[in-house]
């Protein structure tokens, strides 16, 4: 039974922070989504390229749903996506997940450690489900395939 799905790609964009371990967690989560969990319908872009106004990247963002994951309250990912013309449809912050999982604090920028990886996994799972909802796929059905 083929469902009517909106097969357009969803862009999942982390912030580019290199000063905070929480930013590294955001990136790890995005890689897990676009490489392991939903490789066929999710991808990412370079935030720097978008910040500079690269037309090709800006077009990708404008014509598809975008989910951002920011590593701190400065919200560079969601702010820069919004500045490019369309706000993200969903924006996450690593902190909100840290509040729910007080024990999963990432260790360092270069190595988030086991707790950081577990936190990234939790975030990646959420984003994967959001992508399914955005694409009109019923997640249970999808597992059954």
């Amino acid at each position, binding site marked *: 039974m083929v469902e009517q799905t909106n097969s357009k790609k969803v862009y999942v964009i982390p912030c580019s922070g*290199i000063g905070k371990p929480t930013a590294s967690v955001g990136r790890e989560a995005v890689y897990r989504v676009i490489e392991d969990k939903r490789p066929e319908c999710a991808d990412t872009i370079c935030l720097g390229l978008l910040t500079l106004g690269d037309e090709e990247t800006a077009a990708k963002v404008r014509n598809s749903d975008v989910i951002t994951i920011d590593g701190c309250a400065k919200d560079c990912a969601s*702010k820069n996506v919004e500045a490019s013309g369309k706000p993200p449809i969903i924006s996450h912050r690593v902190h909100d997940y840290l509040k729910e999982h007080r024990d999963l604090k990432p260790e360092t920028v270069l190595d988030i450690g086991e707790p950081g990886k577990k936190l990234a996994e939790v975030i990646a799972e959420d984003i994967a489900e959001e992508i399914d909802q955005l694409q009109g796929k019923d997640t249970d059905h999808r597992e059954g395939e």
Partner: protein
Amino acid sequence: MEMDARPTKVGVLSCSGESEAEGTITRNAVRLVMEKYKPGLVVSLCLPLYLAGDGGERDFAKKVPVITVDGCEKSCARLATEKYSGEVESYLDVRDLLKQWDVTDKLSRSHPGKLEEELTERVAQQIVKLVDHLIEEGKVDIGGEG
């Protein structure tokens, strides 16, 4: 780029490069230089914070010599610095470096392995060379910092 008092810091701006394997190498190399090779001298800057930040990054980049390290030919770090802060002292293009070093293997952006770590270390050494060059040229005063 002459300045009134000689600056005591060097700004190194890496591209964010989330979608490219060279981006991961670039970011990690800059972090390595800052944490391990030139602590207290090299300050890492963050590109999107240029726009979203409170101006601290942009003002700082105007006051110190800036080296940019880009992961690919798009040169976001270099273009952004020229656009928002001013001249770039020197810059690196990691994709170009890898070509020079005849690296043809497929690199991973999310699971950097032994090869990626080795390349990160080599890129970090290149950055250190550029920083030392600035010191020799007297563009940065490391007297006080030590």
